[in-house]
């Protein structure tokens, strides 16, 4: 009975999120219909999100406050999302290894590799906490000139392989104000996500034999609300005997993501510029 009440509450909160679904992705996605809308209003339209620390390559102190960074054009930020965390361990191995721990360590290595390629890196979590899907997306959606990479470890599949995923097709569309609904924020970016995913997968497959040649398609929840070229990278698998097998893969995965992001740079068009959206 109590469980049912809990479920009901959960359903209620979920539907209460409705009003947010129209939360506007303004700035990054301004349509030609509303060219004069001030872009600085963007962060206030986001669902509440913790301010993510931006680690700049130069590590300059006294950075501009979150969201106010002037877009310098082109792709310069990678939002890294170590999936799960907190009470959600994700996939669990027989030896007690947890997906949430492995991806957190992996994110550190990916960050280092990306910084070497000249990217700034924003992480959606730094420790063992579990931001909601929307909070994580909001951190990416508040950036301009960013791509999003969510990191996972699978429960199945050939150990030692890695797959990149892009979101399945979403119904395109904007509301009457020309704004993209929050719950389909990924829709206009699917073409770019596919290009980014294929590039990363190409570098992954060179190093991890047995991985697919191109990015796979999945209805991944985290990607759907992300208004940026977004991919998921999933390492196989949590079933390994020893965690060190997965840790040994980390440098290769980090390198492939960094090279993929660098190779994607020329294809990236800043959304919001006329004709910028694919």
């Amino acid at each position, binding site marked *: 009975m109590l469980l049912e009440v809990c479920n009901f509450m959960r359903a209620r909160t*979920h539907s209460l999120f409705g009003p947010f*679904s129209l939360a506007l992705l303004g700035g990054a996605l301004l349509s030609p219909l509303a060219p004069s809308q001030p872009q600085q209003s963007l962060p206030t339209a986001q669902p509440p999100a913790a301010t993510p620390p931006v680690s700049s390559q130069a590590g300059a102190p006294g950075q501009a406050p979150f969201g106010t960074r002037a877009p310098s054009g082109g792709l310069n930020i990678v939002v890294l999302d170590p999936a799960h965390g907190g009470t959600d361990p994700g996939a669990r191995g027989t030896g007690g290894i947890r997906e949430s721990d492995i991806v957190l360590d992996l994110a550190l290595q990916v960050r280092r590799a990306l910084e070497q390629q000249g990217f700034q890196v924003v992480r959606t979590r730094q420790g063992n906490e579990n931001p909601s899907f929307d909070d994580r997306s909001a951190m990416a959606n508040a950036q301009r000139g960013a791509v999003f990479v969510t990191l996972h470890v699978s429960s*199945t599949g050939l150990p030692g392989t890695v797959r990149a995923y892009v979101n399945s097709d979403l119904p395109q569309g904007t509301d009457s104000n020309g704004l993209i609904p929050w719950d389909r924020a990924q829709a206009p970016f699917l073409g770019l996500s596919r290009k980014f995913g294929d590039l990363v997968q190409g570098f992954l497959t060179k190093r991890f034999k047995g991985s697919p040649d191109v990015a796979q398609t999945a*209805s991944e929840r985290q990607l759907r609300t992300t208004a940026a070229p977004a991919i998921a990278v999933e390492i196989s698998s949590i079933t390994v005997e020893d965690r060190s097998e997965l840790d040994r893969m980390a440098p290769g995965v980090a390198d492939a993501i960094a090279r993929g992001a660098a190779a994607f740079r020329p294809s990236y068009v800043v959304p919001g510029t006329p004709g910028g959206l694919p």
Partner: protein
Amino acid sequence: MTARWKVFLIAGLVLAVIAAAIYFPMLRKRVKRAAKLQQQSEEQARRELAQSIAVNPSDPRIKAKLFWASDTDNSLLVPVTAELPLSLDPVLRSKQVLNTLLAGPVEAEQRTLPPDAVLLAFYLLPDGTAIADFSEALATSIPSGIASEQLAVDSIARTLEANVPQVQRLKILIHGQEVETLAGHLDLSGTFVVNTKPVQPLSKPLPAAVEMNQPAAPAPANNKAPASGALTPDKSTGKLAQPESK
């Protein structure tokens, strides 16, 4: 005199202790047996609830296609043909094929769905949207991961596509509830495209494979081709469709 009473009293107490020592294990056994019986009847009730689909022997035996994981690469689905007595009613037929899918292949490795998951209910709306309600085990027992969760949903969608052409879209519920993800990755908030071709009679060839496992396009507002035997009266799909109007 008092000493005699004492002896009687002690003897009585000793007797009571011995009697209790004999009786207590018996009582415990009986309680355990009763608990087991209750568990069994719960399990039985669950099965009865889940497998209430009557197989009509007069139903024609049809070659049904079931999609399980490949034995060489467990990230791929392969069709397995099985001859099953399938109903002509799309709802009953969907239940029959999904229960067969849940019962699993001979090789446990080829399973796409957890063995303890059951189909609790299945509805088909007039616009071709199917609603499949699975027990919580589908979400809790499935190996967590993008690959494994996508494979599970694909196996359901493709099995329905191959055997029940009336199903156009699929909405998956867990224990009657709309959930955000299957097991932390796969988005269950929308519907999955099953068939993109319009409804056609069962006797015609089944539609060829199409792109699937994608949250559906907006449900058509006009219900031009009501599926026969739909359980639910004419109603809009309401909040179950992809939330377009928010």
